[in-house]
């Protein structure tokens, strides 16, 4: 399973982000969640810098699972990174 807690950077209004959150919940995965559109000022700048270090496009959702960074709602890749078997 995962060593580090996954962290999901997302937007409150984004449907791809909502699908990613639902997938993590359905898989009973505990994760840290950062709703970036709620942030302002220095905190926002710092978080954007963090995201850009992981995903230079700074798009959403961006999720970090251990050393793996996945951009977009990609169910298969997310499950693999979580060590969850994909039903093919």
């Amino acid at each position, binding site marked *: 399973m995962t060593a580090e807690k996954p962290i999901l950077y997302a*937007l409150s209004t984004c449907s791809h982000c909502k699908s990613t959150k639902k997938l993590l919940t359905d898989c009973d995965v505990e994760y840290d969640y950062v709703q970036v559109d709620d942030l302002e000022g220095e905190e926002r700048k710092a978080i954007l810098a963090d995201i850009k270090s992981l995903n230079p496009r700074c798009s959403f959702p961006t999720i970090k699972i251990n050393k793996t960074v996945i*951009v977009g709602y990609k169910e298969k890749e997310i499950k693999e990174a979580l060590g969850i078997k994909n039903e093919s």
Partner: protein
Amino acid sequence: MKVEQLYTALKKSQEARGIYFNKDRDLVFELLDALLKNKDRYGYMACPCRLACGDKEKDRDIFCPCEYRAPDLEEFGTCYCGLYVSSALNNNEIEAQYVPERRPPEKIF
């Protein structure tokens, strides 16, 4: 404005230009609701799947329909957030796929 009113108005104007709403009606209404939320908080309908900064000039490229819709429809048959699809995708001539972000990162604040 209510989501249903926005849906009806946009459906008419966009289909006249050969651009369709996604067949996933729940997704469409979720995204239209998000557009109205962004209109309330920013004063303009910023793309629900992109980070708006609240500055009208800086966010002009992501007013919905965004500047990136045309090239995304052309290449992928759908816009970045999935609200709009091309007739090719609508008629199942092409398959839906992940649309990478086209917006330059330097525009994100």
